[in-house]
């Protein structure tokens, strides 16, 4: 503990010294305790070249002759064959953003399984539901189980 503090203080001095003397800042790595990578989740790297983007319209010859509204973005990640579709909004721009977000979530899930962002959230939800049921059981006995089941998942904000 003391050693880490000492390291930090030393780096602090170096940084401020370099600022005074206009030296380029040194990029120093401190050994950080309790890092976020404890569960072994690796970051998802998605390259633009790996993605095929297709915009699908439901009609053929449109142009000025039609004013139907729809916009469907289909992204395919070629290396893994993952495909996501988004036709939530009327904006191509927004659909693209949402599709990219979903692609990342899906790839995260594939790559990291239980350690992914979604996996952790599901685990948290399960733990919360379990705790709630335990608490109800302790207070009111086993009849409370039926009541606990009626609560929809996610009544409390995440």
């Amino acid at each position, binding site marked *: 503990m003391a050693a880490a503090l000492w390291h930090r203080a030393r780096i602090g001095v170096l940084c401020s010294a370099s600022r005074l003397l206009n030296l380029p800042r040194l990029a120093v790595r401190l050994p950080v305790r309790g890092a976020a990578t404890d569960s072994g989740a690796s970051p998802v790297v998605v390259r633009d070249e790996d993605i095929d983007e*297709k*915009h*699908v*319209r*439901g*009609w*053929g*010859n*449109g*142009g*000025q*002759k*039609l*004013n*139907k*509204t*729809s*916009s469907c973005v289909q992204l395919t990640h070629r290396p893994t064959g993952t495909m*996501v579709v*988004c*036709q*939530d*909004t*009327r*904006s*191509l*721009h*927004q659909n693209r953003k949402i599709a990219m977000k*979903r692609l990342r*979530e*899906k790839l995260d*899930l594939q790559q990291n399984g239980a350690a992914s962002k*979604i*996996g952790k*959230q*599901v685990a948290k*939800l399960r733990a919360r539901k379990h705790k709630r049921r335990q608490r109800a059981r302790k207070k009111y006995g086993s009849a409370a189980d039926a009541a606990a089941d009626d609560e*929809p*998942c*996610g009544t409390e*904000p*995440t």
Partner: protein
Amino acid sequence: MPRSPANNTLAPLLRQLAGKLGDRQAASELRWMAAHVRKTLGDTAARTEHSGAQYRRARLWRDQPAPSTEEADLDARRFSSVQWAWLRQAVADRVEKHKPLQYILGSQPFGKTEIGVRSPVLIPRPETEEWVLRLAESLAAHHAARPPPPPGAPSPPLSILDACTGSGCVALGLASELPPGAARIAGVDVSADALALALSNQTRNAAVLNNEVEFHQIDLLAADTASRLEALRPGGWDMIVANPPYVTPAEYRGLDADVRDWEDVRALVPMPLRVADELDPSGVSFIERLAVLARALRLAREGALASPALPRLVVEIGGAKQTEPARQAMHDNGFGRTEVWKDMAGTDRAVLGYAEK
């Protein structure tokens, strides 16, 4: 949570829409109407985003395909009576009067902008959005690759004319996609209605516009057009882009009521140069007129622009039947080379004229 009366349910509304649009399109449109009414007429329940996102994540975990946001959006318990009244009226307008959804919702997304729309100004088409974004990408690449200008003399912005601007979508779309200072864009239209709308769209999207845009009322079919356009930009024009009317009179008679009953015929069918003349049966007369104007404004002269590889005239067309006449008109007016861009349905959608061979 107040309970809605039994006669306020979404199922009959969905059925009405599906009769006109089919199930899938009806569901999407009802969802967008619901989202719109919640946004504009107030939304008291704040749980939507969370519950929708959690449903989706839980399903992904169970390896089911991620649903769209229908469940949260169409939660019928969450509409007030005012919102129900709006929804019923909107569906009635959509089904009985064939009012386009974009006019009901009042806007259409176009690139990064949100274009306000109202009848009879033409609703921005996704085909137009496609070539405008592609053109912006190409222009932005050229702008990035240009040789660095000498200090104290920044490279002049491109003078771009958006003919038949209507709601202003092409001008504003380009202004928002191009890097700052790349262009000075002017949109012109014959209709005062359209110009009022274009100006309000400029204000509405001010936050995303990187480049200057101005709007003027000019009749492109009048005899003095070329001189009026020259007066607008004494330094000369670099490029004309346009989504001119190109529907043939025969096609117009066969159009859906959604289009024919609500959008300006002058935005769809090219009018003759002289009032007493016949309508052009091929629909390319306005495109030819633009090629003639481009020559009058000396756009086809070689060596004028810093980057000769840029197109000078970009015009939307109505499919393969118009490709050859459009290309011919450009060649006849001094453009050395022409190119055709297809839209995502594989239809010929834009013809570009270059000064160089």
